[in-house]
């Protein structure tokens, strides 16, 4: 490694450390902001002492007893620095963000750190100065045109997202401390109501609310309203489903609804016509072992593969591994192949899938499912994927399962292992004489192109070139060889 690249690596590492420190600082800062803060700035018209006094009296007193104060003669004009507005502060932060980025990109870390420090201070001032920063930020987000070609817009959005998140966090923490959620509830309600307005608000609203503790029972009608909009295709269904799931999770976590109540609600929603509600209901019921068979039976009877696919993904991601595997197995008659779900589950729990594969191999049943199980185990980091793939190549009688085992080798950096696996499957007549199966081999071979081992590509390419490939695969192979081999030509056949 050259000195330059070492220095660059050091710089990047420093940037990472500083960024992490910055985020920790921001978190600590956000928590600190949860405490008492000075009141919000008075309106611009109330800057003179007399006017301020009048405003104070007018705000706090009963109208019947309010004292009208006659304005005094204006004081002599003195040069004062005007208090920056919320919008001006956001603009300043966006400019600082861009400047910091430029400095960081130029590897001027000292200046970038100083600029970052300034940003932190300005952000802190903004949050302290405006106790309605969340509402103000939301208003700015809502007013942003979409699409906005101003190059500073992403920076402004970033600032406003942090402001919104900081506001929600400090209000939530205060609410927990004083057992009064009105302020945080109001901000969340505003946000949910505004979300259908623009793409920015949908994305920023999801970012601020999904998988976070702010949605509560009081927001249920608003969230269900988003669900209804999604059923009319006027709001992204994935976002509506996610918010509904977050809401239910929060209701259960805070005790606003018991698990049984939610399950009963979910049962009712299963019958509803809206896909978001059905998906959320299915997930809620699947989490409860008592209701799992009921949901699976409902899914099978209904035969809706779109929902079944979503449920498979949810199960693979969220359920305990053995329960998730049960769900995927039960969905088998409806969805004979579920590679994505098995791969997601394999990333979490490869051993569970490996055991299931061995059991099915012992009984030599369900080759499609064995294929998916192998694909899932191959997602796991470490050697378990290739070990099971080698076991499959040695023992599995299904050519299609062996093809999947070959993929496990061809997605790794071990090109020698990949070459051996490809040759192994090509030794099987059922593969080398079948253009459809050869398609799979060529697609696996395509992964080796990135590895750049010319000799392996040359050897395997020559073998594949002599087999009865489909026209599409022959074209794909020609492209790979053209890019990977010197002059696009094979070496002299050995």
């Amino acid at each position, binding site marked *: 490694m050259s000195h330059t690249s070492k220095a660059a690596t050091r710089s990047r590492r420093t*940037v*990472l450390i*500083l*960024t992490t420190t*910055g*985020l920790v*600082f*921001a978190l600590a*800062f956000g928590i600190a902001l949860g405490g008492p803060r000075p009141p919000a700035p008075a309106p611009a018209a109330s800057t003179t002492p007399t006017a301020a006094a009048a405003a104070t009296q007018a705000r706090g007193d009963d109208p019947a007893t309010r004292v009208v104060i006659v304005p005094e003669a204006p004081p002599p004009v003195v040069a004062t620095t005007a208090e920056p507005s919320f919008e001006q502060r956001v603009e300043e*932060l966006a400019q*600082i*963000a861009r400047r*910091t*980025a430029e400095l*960081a*990109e130029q590897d001027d870390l000292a200046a*970038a*750190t100083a600029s*970052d420090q300034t*940003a932190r201070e300005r*952000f802190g001032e903004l949050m302290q100065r405006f106790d309605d920063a969340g509402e103000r930020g939301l208003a700015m987000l809502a007013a942003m045109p979409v699409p906005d070609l101003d190059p500073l817009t992403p*920076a402004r959005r*970033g*600032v406003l997202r*942090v402001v919104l998140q900081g506001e929600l966090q400090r209000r939530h923490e205060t609410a927990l401390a004083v057992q009064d959620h009105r302020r945080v509830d109001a901000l969340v309600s505003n946000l949910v109501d505004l979300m259908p307005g623009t*793409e920015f608000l949908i*994305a*920023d609203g999801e970012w601020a609310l*999904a*998988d976070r503790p702010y949605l509560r029972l009081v927001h249920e009608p608003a969230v269900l309203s988003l669900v209804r909009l999604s059923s009319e295709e006027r709001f992204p269904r994935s976002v509506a489903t996610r918010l509904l799931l977050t809401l239910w999770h929060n209701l259960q976590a805070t005790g606003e609804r018991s698990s049984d109540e939610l399950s009963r609600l979910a049962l009712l929603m299963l019958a509803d016509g809206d896909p978001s509600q059905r998906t959320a209901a299915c997930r809620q019921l699947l989490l409860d072992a008592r209701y799992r068979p009921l949901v699976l039976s409902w899914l099978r009877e209904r035969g809706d*593969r*779109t929902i079944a*696919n979503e449920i498979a*993904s949810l199960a693979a*991601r969220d359920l305990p591994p053995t329960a998730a595997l049960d769900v995927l197995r039960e969905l088998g008659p409806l*969805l*004979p*192949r579920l*590679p*994505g779900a098995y*791969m*997601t589950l394999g*990333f979490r729990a490869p051993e569970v899938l490996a055991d299931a594969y061995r059991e099915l191999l012992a009984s030599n049943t369900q080759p499609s499912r064995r*294929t998916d199980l192998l*694909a899932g185990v*191959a*997602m796991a980091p470490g050697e378990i994927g290739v070990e099971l793939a080698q076991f499959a190549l040695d023992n599995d009688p299904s050519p299609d399962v062996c*093809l999947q085992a070959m*993929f496990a080798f*061809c*997605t790794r950096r071990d090109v020698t292992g990949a070459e051996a696996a490809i040759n192994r499957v090509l030794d099987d007549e059922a593969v080398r004489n079948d253009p*459809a199966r050869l*398609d*799979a081999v060529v*697609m696996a071979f*395509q*992964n080796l192109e*990135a590895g750049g081992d010319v000799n392996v590509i040359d050897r395997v390419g020559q073998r594949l070139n002599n087999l009865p490939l489909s026209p*599409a*695969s022959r074209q794909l192979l020609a492209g790979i060889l053209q890019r990977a081999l010197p002059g696009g030509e094979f070496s002299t056949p050995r």
Partner: protein
Amino acid sequence: MNVRSLLMMLFAAVFAVGAAAQNCPKERTLDVPASVTFGPVQNCGDINYRLPGISLSTVPNGCPMFLIYTPPHQVAVPSDNLTQVVSTSTSAITLATFRCQTRWLIIIPIGSNCVLDQQKNVGVVQTLVTAPCQL
């Protein structure tokens, strides 16, 4: 053509149909729509990712460690008719892995980008059609 020949032809035809029925897998195709499965998320910025037939952008709340794209395809399911499924083409199941690229040094995380790290073929699915069994 005499009666005997006619009977023999009829017998042969009936036998052929019976044999075909015995060898016919009695399957039909079932359409499976394309699907995208996301892996666990890393805290990062937005994502822009394009594949034939799919365009993902601005996935909030993080950068997926990976996504698996399964293209639309067909699977064989039992049928009451004397039909079989025939493969017409093969499509790759694609695994795309992502990483956070943090370029910005500030508490305001506007400089983190979710960038494509690698894209690999991790399996295949078939495009199938239903065809009558050969008599």
